């Protein structure tokens, strides 16, 4: 059962990391425009002008 000594804190830390990521995303407005995000993923405006299609 000694394995619990680091596995349990590890599990909790992973969960807390996920929670922190979620709260950051929420605060950062990542959930404000769910429709637009789907389109932005496929837009190629990060390419130089002549490589766009």
């Amino acid at each position, binding site marked *: 059962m000694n394995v619990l000594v680091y596995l349990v804190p590890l599990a*909790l830390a992973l*969960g807390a990391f996920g*929670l922190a990521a*979620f709260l950051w995303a*929420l605060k950062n407005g990542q959930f*404000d*425009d769910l429709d*637009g995000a789907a*389109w932005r993923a496929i*837009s190629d405006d990060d390419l130089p002008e002549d490589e766009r299609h």
Partner: protein
Amino acid sequence: MTAAQDLSLFVRRPLDGVAAMDLVVEGVHCGACINAIEAGLRKQAGVRGARVNLASKRVTVEWNEGALEPPAILERLEALGYPAHPFAANTVDSVERAAEQQLMRCLGVAAFATMNVMLLSVALWAGADSDSNSATRDLFHWLSALVALPCVAYAGMPFFVSAARALKAGSLNMDVPISLGVTLALALSLFQTIAHERDAYFDSALMLLMFLLAGRVLDQRMRRRARDFATNLTAVRADRALKLVEGGEACETPIAAIHPGDLVLVRAGERIAVDGAVEDGRSEVDQSLVTGETMPIAVSAGAAVYAGALNLSGALRVRVTKEAGQALLDEVNALLAKAMEQRSSYVRIADRAARFYAPVVHLTALATFLGWLLVGAGWQHSLIVAITVLIITCPCALGLAVPAVQVVAAGALFRRGLLLNSGEALERLAEAGTIVFDKTGTLTDPRPTLANGADIAPADLALAGSLALSSKHPLAKAIADASGAKAPLSGHEFPGRGVSTLHHGKRVKLGSVAFCNAEAEAAPVAAAFPDASLIALKTPERKVVFAIRQGLRSDARETVASLARGHEIEILSGDRRAAVELVARELGVARFESDLKPKDKIERLKTLSAAGKRPLMVGDGLNDAPALAAAHVSISPVSAAHIAQAQADALFLGERLAPVADAVNFAVKARRLMVENLCLSLVYNAIAAPLAVLGYVTPLIAALAMSGSSVLVTLNALRARDA
């Protein structure tokens, strides 16, 4: 547009030297639009950045302060092909938004805690506590408590606050048994943990909270979406007025920035955006949005005019007044205040269920405690069993039963062009007995159309249409639309009377009947269309009279007929009898009343309510606002006067009347599903509660039962998608 624009009201200053403005953009559909707008705006000198929100159809633009004038942004967007309208987010919007963010944070915390506590619980259920000294089990329980207690304290806030508010007001809502169940479950689990006992319910309490929060988030999101949409509509309707500043210049100003005492110019063909008194000018106004009366009224200096009226013929200068001192507005406001006071405090179906449910549950728990005590189980064991009863009967499914249906039904109605202002509107809609329609602007299309097109020779219509294109008069627009004319004949406009021109060497006139001396020709047309405004065309050879009126909405007949199958239909109008009778006959409605004042409409609604008919009022005018507030439930078209829109429980979009019928059908179905869902959760309780009373419930059973019943009611709620 020649007038300068004053947009300073909409400009924010997020940082020093940076100005920003939020705009509602028309015609944004996909990723290509996002690119076009953002790239297009960034190319404008001075613009720091632009961000499109596709979900809410808005764009936020930031620029270096002083580098450009705000109207330039509107022009740029217009040139890109996306007409935009500035708007200022109001406080209600930001409050709703903050509430949604807070609920999302609670949901995140609850989900985190549930996952981690489940991790420990599943290990225990799987046999991790089988070692003899049970040290592992205690460790896991303590860890669970460590996670659960602070998380519940945070994520349970929305429920605790609401429950406390209800108790303070001396009533019960669903949040009272929820809060009690969660708190007791935690307290019991903590006690069991300290006492090295086997059963703890941390996972059940957290899972319950997570399910309920998910329901709340969906509910809040639906409300915010409807509100966003309503804000966009207001922005697109562009309530701006031409304010006359010193020196006689006109400046286009949002009405929020116009104050009593300002002078406003209203040109022919424009809607009056403010309440006020005419300073000078002479014109006719169409007050149909205000009083329901379709005949234009002549106004001159000193006359009172109301926001929403259409200025037909001449330019007016209007002095903005406070609302007080105007007979009609005073009357409407007084009636409105009274109607809202009397609006029965409606008890939502979920709260009604809670009022019945909570005492039963709490009495059962008490009886369980006493029962176990009587058979000699000892007070400690008796208390534990009694609390498990409270946990197992905690209304998880009950709390989801109603909001889940509301969210699904509201989403379906939204796609059909109906916006619900509140979730409970759905419940009240389902109870509607009599459906009361206003005529003007509700049953009829607010845009005037040519009524006697069939009687007019195509050549005359084409000629009138070309001539009409040169006029700003709204009735002329109806003729131009009907003729499909593209090439305008340049004519000389006589304000308030008509236009005149030389066509192939002949004098042609289009205008009022008197302007064309067509009284003889007008008489039969007036008799055939008593509710129409008449326009005459005069050529040297002949005179033709056009009847123009607000025609019925294209699907009014079918919609009213389908509603009439389950409901009584009435028409209550402020318009003249002849006009109302015509519409009633066309729609096959037997009961109608005309020439009604706002208080007459309320009287009629009261009579209906007293007879237990629960009226649904559908209306749009300023004069309908008190009636909309007094009715059991109300719907307005989006073209309605502001004050009416604010009172309505739902708004319908577009030219068609069908959303009204959809609303009623969906509401009836949704109500049935709500009742079904409540019954489902009661059945679940009927099975689980006896097990709990007899002391057979373990944490595993509690967790399974809770998630099982929640999933069941959610799946059932999905059926609200189609009527």
